């Protein structure tokens, strides 16, 4: 395997483990909000139906949460194991947000998840609602600290360079008030709500189409579609737009690479489809909207957008095709989500959705796609940051652990691949069983 040097393997190691890990927290964070909404409806209406619906989702939440925990622990360790030089140099800054995540959110989540799952009878409805709220708050706080860490790597703020080259914290509020953080956090968290909504709507559609648990099916479809309509729209505007402007202003070369814009233009077109050809420096088979990129970025049809030609090639992201495709997959799917959810919401409003076969089929089958869109979004962020580990401060090859050989890195990468394959099979098996048993199952009431 030529080219599988230690650096490549360390990058794949992190990419693989983080990609697999984040399949779970996105549902955790999205479902936490939706379960809280169900608990609120139960509390306000006094209707046992909603409490039972919340119990059903709590069981799926618990399986998903366990997967997030066990795949999350390796992330905290891998900064040190595989990226030791990066950790030594920048640990004084990013260790701060990672430690805060442990202290402020993991303790909160883990303590009250047990209370939430096992304590409903003992606590009574109001205290149990509060436990659900604390689990929600813990998971969203956890997201905040992780995004704060990533935002700092995308756009470092609040730091100073020590004489020995270490990067030190100079301003705590500079770190937490990073302008990049605001849009990235909202974009990411609402993305989690999109995943949660699609999964809930999908299970609801499955019940309606199989004519089982139909009362719950209607509740899940309704909540999933309403939350999905709002969240998919918010993904596009303002959060997607805000995140795009972050990139345009702070990482213009990344914007050019994402859009496949090789040459600087006044009135730059927006590429919908096309394959970037790095050798010829052009987009093959392009279908574009003239001047749209200029407008979206600067609100002026004739504004200048810098192409890749405006930057020296050693500052270009090192995998432009992957960046371009992942960005386009994210945006393409996001646009389809808005359309589908808008259609479903219209049908729901007209009282036809629960009997509309095609829409229910679509809702049922769409559940995996938000995961793909989220993953593509994160690949866009991370590949777009290249060739930097910390944008403008540290290049990726510099940050790796110098003494961990390619052989050792491949050994553990293969180990993770094997274990995660088993985890994925177990997860799908257990979640399918819960869905198959359904919310009306008597075991649901005793948990």
């Amino acid at each position: 395997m030529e080219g599988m040097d230690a650096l490549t393997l360390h990058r794949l190691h992190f990419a693989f483990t983080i990609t697999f890990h984040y399949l779970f927290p996105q549902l955790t964070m999205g479902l936490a909000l939706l379960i809280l909404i169900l608990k609120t409806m139960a509390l306000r209406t006094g209707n046992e139906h909603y409490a039972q619906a919340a119990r059903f989702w709590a069981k799926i939440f618990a399986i998903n949460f366990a997967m997030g925990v066990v795949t999350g622990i390796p992330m905290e360790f891998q900064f040190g194991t595989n990226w030791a030089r990066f950790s030594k140099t920048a640990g004084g800054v990013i260790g701060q947000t990672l430690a805060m995540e442990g202290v402020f959110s993991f303790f909160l989540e883990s303590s009250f998840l047990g209370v939430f799952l096992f304590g409903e009878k003992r606590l009574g409805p109001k205290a149990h609602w509060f436990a659900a709220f604390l689990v929600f708050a813990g998971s969203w706080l956890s997201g905040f600290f992780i995004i704060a860490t990533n935002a700092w790597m995308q756009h470092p703020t609040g730091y100073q360079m020590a004489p020995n080259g270490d990067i030190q914290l100079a301003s705590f509020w500079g770190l937490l008030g990073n302008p990049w953080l605001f849009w990235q956090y909202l974009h990411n968290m609402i993305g989690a709500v999109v995943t949660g909504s699609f999964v809930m709507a999908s299970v609801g559609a499955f019940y309606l189409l199989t004519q089982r648990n139909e009362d719950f099916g209607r509740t899940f479809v309704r909540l999933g579609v309403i939350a999905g309509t709002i969240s998919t729209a918010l993904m596009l505007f303002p959060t997607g737009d805000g995140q795009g402007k972050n990139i345009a202003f702070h990482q213009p070369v990344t914007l050019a690479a994402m859009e496949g814009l090789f040459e600087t233009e006044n009135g730059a077109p927006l590429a919908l489809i096309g394959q970037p050809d790095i050798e010829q420096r052009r987009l093959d088979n392009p279908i574009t909207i003239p001047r749209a990129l200029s407008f979206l970025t600067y609100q002026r049809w004739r504004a200048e957008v810098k192409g890749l030609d405006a930057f020296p090639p050693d500052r270009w992201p090192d995998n432009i095709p992957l960046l371009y495709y992942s960005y386009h997959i994210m945006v393409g799917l996001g646009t389809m989500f808005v359309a589908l959810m808008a259609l479903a919401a219209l049908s729901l409003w007209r009282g036809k959705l629960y009997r509309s076969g095609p829409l229910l089929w679509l809702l049922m089958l769409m559940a995996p796609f938000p995961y793909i869109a989220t993953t593509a979004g994160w690949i866009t962020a991370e590949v777009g940051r290249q060739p930097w580990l910390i944008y403008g401060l540290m290049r990726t090859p510099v940050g790796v652990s110098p003494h961990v050989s390619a052989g050792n890195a491949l050994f553990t990468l293969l180990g993770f691949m094997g274990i995660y394959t088993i985890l994925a099979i177990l997860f799908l098996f257990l979640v399918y069983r819960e869905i198959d048993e359904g919310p009306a199952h008597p075991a649901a009431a005793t948990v």
Partner: protein
Amino acid sequence: METIWFSLVAAMLAVYVVLDGFDLGAGVVHLFVARSDAQRRAVLASIGPVWDGNEVWLLASGGTLYFAFPALYASSFSGFYLPLMIVLWLLILRGIAIEFRNHVRSLVWQPLWDTVFAGSSGLLAVFFGAALGNVVRGVPLDRSGEFFLPLWTDFRAGKESGILDWYTLLVAAAAFLALTVHGALWVALKTEGEVQQRARRAAQRFWWALAASVVVVTVCSFRIQPHLSESFAAHPWGYVFPLAALAGLIGMRMRAGRREGLEAFLCSCLFLIGMLTSVAFGLYPYVLPSNGDPAFSMTVTSAAAAPYGLRVGLMWFIPGMLLTTSYFVYTYRSFAGKVR
């Protein structure tokens, strides 16, 4: 300021060992003290609502180590690459064994996860012990404060040894025994009937092996790491830590019958805290000694982050820990008493 953070990280790790220690120990003994499915459910129920929170102490200690001592975090995590990765795999297996065991009722499902739970718990205790042994023995740090250790070489505890040598294996065995007794005492405290009796017997039998291993490990540690004796000679007040450990060790045995075993369990906590604080006190100011050139040893000052970050860290750490303590008091109180 560095010393404050050194004490805080050491304290967090000690809390981790005490809390997750009984989860691990319960995992080690549960195959033997609990035979039927109902009995094993009872053992799992005794840790079910708390194990995840207990394990967060490991993550939070790791995070705190990361920001307070980035150089130590980077050097030790990359240097102990292989054992840490194996620890991660074991933590994954143990986590899913606990969480997924009761989802399916089948004659193959429960025994499978019970075995995974016991095996991963036991191996984790062994690896944590070996890690502690490595930190006491020292590692081959180079000029830039980095190293890489293979899992094993010649087992000689010399400059060429790997992670596992006779000394670190000895510490690993002692850690395994300590957590086994700790876990057995916890199970005895939380259960009734047969399980409780078997757990008590296990704690008593393993106690003799534990006491013997503690004596051997203590003697060997002072020989392997001369800095330990220097520390205690320079600051004799530090003897309070090993004395606390000794009191805990004896107390575990003497107070076995009191208050349903609560006193014995608390003595075991005291023993673990005493042992770990003795090590921390004995190594200070070193955080990672070199077993080659002593000039390359990493100290609290050479590994610490810049003063501003440490100061600011204290501002959020103290309220954060107060909140955390309140969560733990709340959850342990609400799940207090015997498992039903």
